[in-house]
């Protein structure tokens, strides 16, 4: 696993808006292949590196130059954790749609959309703030000391 350096916090917010749009399209169309692609994207960002996120590159080349520079930086660890939370929901959603359990697919995709929208609109990462609770029920989240 690579270690990412801190990032301009507006990049992940832009990325979260794009994720929100993608998940909304999935809900409206039931196009599970798009959700599968989003699941792979979540996995790459969470488990390999945030640099693999294409929206990050779009932000850097197309949007950041038009904004006033900021010295504010956000640590990468919360962002990657958020991608991991997204990955779990998107994976369940993809399996649901692909196996005909459409209701499961919709519920999981809907929950992922809620998380992405809160992140985009308010900069809020539910999974990160509730890490202590999640860890109590998912021991695998424990980090090596």
């Amino acid at each position, binding site marked *: 696993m690579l270690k990412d350096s801190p990032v301009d916090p507006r990049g992940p917010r832009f990325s979260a808006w794009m994720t929100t749009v993608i998940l909304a399209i999935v809900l409206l169309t039931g196009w599970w292949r798009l959700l599968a692609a989003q699941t792979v994207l979540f996995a790459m960002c969470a488990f390999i590196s945030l640099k693999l996120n294409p929206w990050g590159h779009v932000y850097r080349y197309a949007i950041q130059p038009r904004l006033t520079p900021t010295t504010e930086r956000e640590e990468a660890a919360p962002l990657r954790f958020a991608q991991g939370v997204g990955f779990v929901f998107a994976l369940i959603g993809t399996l649901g749609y692909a196996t005909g359990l459409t209701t499961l697919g919709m519920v999981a995709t809907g929950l992922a959309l809620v998380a992405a929208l809160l992140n985009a609109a308010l900069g809020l990462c539910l999974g990160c703030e509730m*890490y202590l609770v999640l860890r109590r029920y998912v021991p695998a989240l424990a980090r090596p000391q």
Partner: protein
Amino acid sequence: MTGVWALLGALAVAGAIGVLLKVREGRISSSKASAVPDLPAPVRDLLVAPGVTLVQLSTTFCAPCRHAKVVLRDLADRTDGLTHAELDVTNLPDVAASLGVMRTPTTLALTADGTEVLRVGGVPKRDTLLAALRPHLP
């Protein structure tokens, strides 16, 4: 058609959670201030006498913890008898659980003998917090 309802439902849920969290952010809950509880050792070690110690519980995955730290450190620097200490509980979930802390940042205001004066969930609001702490400061 169901997809449209699912989308509307998700938007409504996100809106509700967003409003709820905005309202609760930085809210101060005053403690029962009863007998001194069994304070976990990592927390007790941080307490400074005399005065009040703000013990901020954080995790590696918590972005707002940084903002809370800035607010609290500044407040402690400018206030006599007030100290700020941050405790990373990423690998100490038992400490957080024994204190009844579910989210980070959560800040506990403790006197030197370990009595909890109040606690704040989320990023504290400077002036409101200072006003609530006043009666407990030397």
